[in-house]
């Protein structure tokens, strides 16, 4: 029971996510489809929170996420598929860069509002609305100071909203509890890097 999208359980020879990534790297269209389907909801939700207001109707977000996935797959040959967590962090990085590019483009030529993703110049995103541009900046900055493992743990739990069991699989950890502890330690480190009210940058 339970929904099945190319269910690995039913096809033992076609199983782990890493093998999907490897196949996608080799240009396998079906594997790319599978990966896109697997992550598109999480990425869309993530992008929705970070796009400036007014540019966040679903079609814009979809366009952005889709072009991110296309870019990611095109560059996939340079990526070493250590594990799913790394792949997600890689997707997130490309998506973040895309959003920044789009915002820069929109700021440079506000008259071309009809082009690209119709991003208004400088409007705050829901994330900025919620916590302010400064705090979001501190968070992003602190994130870069973590180790890769820590960064992936934070992104998967906090940003993409995965449950511990999935995180354990994505980070090659032995159990959901091990994944939870990895997230907790990464958060403590992240807090240290962000500092208090005034930050410690």
């Amino acid at each position, binding site marked *: 029971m339970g929904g*099945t999208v*190319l269910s690995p359980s039913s096809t033992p020879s076609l199983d782990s996510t890493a093998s999907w990534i490897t196949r996608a790297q080799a240009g396998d269209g079906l594997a790319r489809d599978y990966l896109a389907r697997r992550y598109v909801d999480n990425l869309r939700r993530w992008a929705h929170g970070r796009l400036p207001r007014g540019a966040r109707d679903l079609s814009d977000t979809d366009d952005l996420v889709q072009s991110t996935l296309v870019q990611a797959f095109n560059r996939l040959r340079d990526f070493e598929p250590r594990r799913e967590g790394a792949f997600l962090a890689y997707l997130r990085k490309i998506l973040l860069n895309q959003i920044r590019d789009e915002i820069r483009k929109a700021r440079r030529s506000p008259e071309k509002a009809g082009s690209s993703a119709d991003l208004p110049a400088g409007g705050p995103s829901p994330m900025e609305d919620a916590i302010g541009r400064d*705090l979001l900046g501190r968070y992003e900055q602190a994130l870069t100071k973590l180790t890769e493992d820590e960064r992936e743990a934070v992104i998967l739990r906090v940003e993409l909203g995965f449950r511990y069991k999935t995180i354990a699989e994505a980070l090659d950890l032995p159990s959901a509890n091990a994944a939870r502890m990895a997230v907790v330690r990464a*958060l403590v480190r992240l807090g240290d890097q*962000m500092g208090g009210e005034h930050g410690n940058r």
Partner: protein
Amino acid sequence: METDDRGARLLRLAEAIADGTPIDWEMAGQADPENSDSFDALRALEAVVSAHGPVPDAAEGSIGERWGSLQIRAKIGEGSFGEVYRAYDPALEREIALKLLQTDRAKSERATHRFLEEARRLAKVRHPNVLVVHGADVHDGRAGMWTDLVRGRTLEQVLAHDGPMSAQVAALIGIDLCRALAAVHAADMIHRDVKTHNVMREEGGRIVLMDFGSVGVFSPGTPPQAGEAAYGTPLTVAPELLRGVAAGPATDLYSLGVLLYRLVTRRYPVEASSFSELTQKHDRGETVPLREARPDLPTDFVQAVERALDPDPRKRFGGPGAMERALAGCIPAPVADRSSGIWRAKAIRPRLRWIYGAAAVGLAIAAIVVMVPKILPPSPTGIPSHVSSPTPTPPSALAASARLYREKNGTSEPLMHGGRVGPGDALYLELEGSEPMNVYVLNEDEMGEVYVLFPLPGLDQANPLSPNTTHRLPGTRAGRRENWEVTSAGGNEDVFVIASREPLRKVEGELTRMALAEPGAAVRYRKLSQQTVNETFRGIGGTTAAAPTPATAALPSKLADLLGALANEPERGRNIWIWQTRLSNPSPSQ
């Protein structure tokens, strides 16, 4: 020591942030005023985390917890989209299956929307061979739907335990799944993941198509949607899906062909360890023909499966109805040749007389499921293509399922089409429909005489029968369970089960003139006059029946001809469901 304490406190706060547990920051700060910077940092971090939306529950649907009013009892399955629990519904006082959207997906509005949409669509399909959805909701940010709890094994489990099946058993399962797919397609949906893992054989034998996590909307005439190909399971999806063509009814039939292939071989027609190998094999036509995998199978069955597996979707069956007919044709004919002199010579008077008497005590445990419909229940997908949809939208086809059983020494066994019965056998019918329906069980003997076996005066059960309940017929009389009993031998007997949205007035009228039987006494079954038979079965819907169709012409039964013609008329056929089986009741000398 103090440093350790501080570290532990920070860790606890970080745990709460990671788990999404609310934190009283005032209290936390007061407890450790000297480290307010660290607390401020974590507090700021918590704000960032919250802004990303709620994190999934750490407990993730623990046993004993509640989801809405439902009490979770045990986890019984897990898939890519959700987890399935056995849960208890205190309002209805029964156990149900609860499918909860995975917590990581539950954060996505779109995933939640899609999940609820799946439930809504599935709820529109009311068919005995399709999982029944009772409701869907969102509690604590987590979407869920609750359905019938089907106790049994998946066909994959049956296969693993019992090994490959015979063509006949596989065909019977295939017939039920064709009906299930007809109902799904009639609701403009495609299942997209028909496979042995997604079909349950319920204890008692009912075949149930489940797992609609991959279901798609099918709009005849609309162009394919990109990305559809990613659904399904590689070894069971149609080759055109691997090439990115959109799923349609024909892709479900291909998967059903793979399922049937697997039921009789435990293998897949195309086996591969990678996608590239799989697509290459499809492109080169490197399939293992069923004939090679199982040379002993009857040709009819092999041809039916091979047609479903045709790489060209246009060459497959036109719909589940056509495939069902082909599979029904695979079931062996009755044991005796009805045209033989012996049978003719014996067919002097009705060979099978039915009385209904007290049933043996004890719970009946049914084994396998199905009986063979020689007259097909009308299915919307079986409607000839030249028939245009009437306006306004017609009601969906009446759906039901029936099985005939023999009860002996407290146990029950299903009777197959052509099954042999003898004097003393106690028979009963299990019937379930998707809506209230008027049910008539008729028996036509070799002389063409038609008797009414149900309804009968004096029984506790009367028309219309309630929906979504398994009715055991003839039913009970004064609370005592009754069976039909075979009292004499000789000849073939056709048993017809007719379910109709409207009562068959003429038949009901004749029954009201019958005398009530005394409890324990033999029942005289009402013989219907040919005039009543003709008027009833030509007259439903107020039109004249068409000529018998090839699908039913093979049956030398007048009633079969009439009902077959009826079932093939789309508009009238939607309101009536017909099922027939033939029993062989030879005399001892035969």
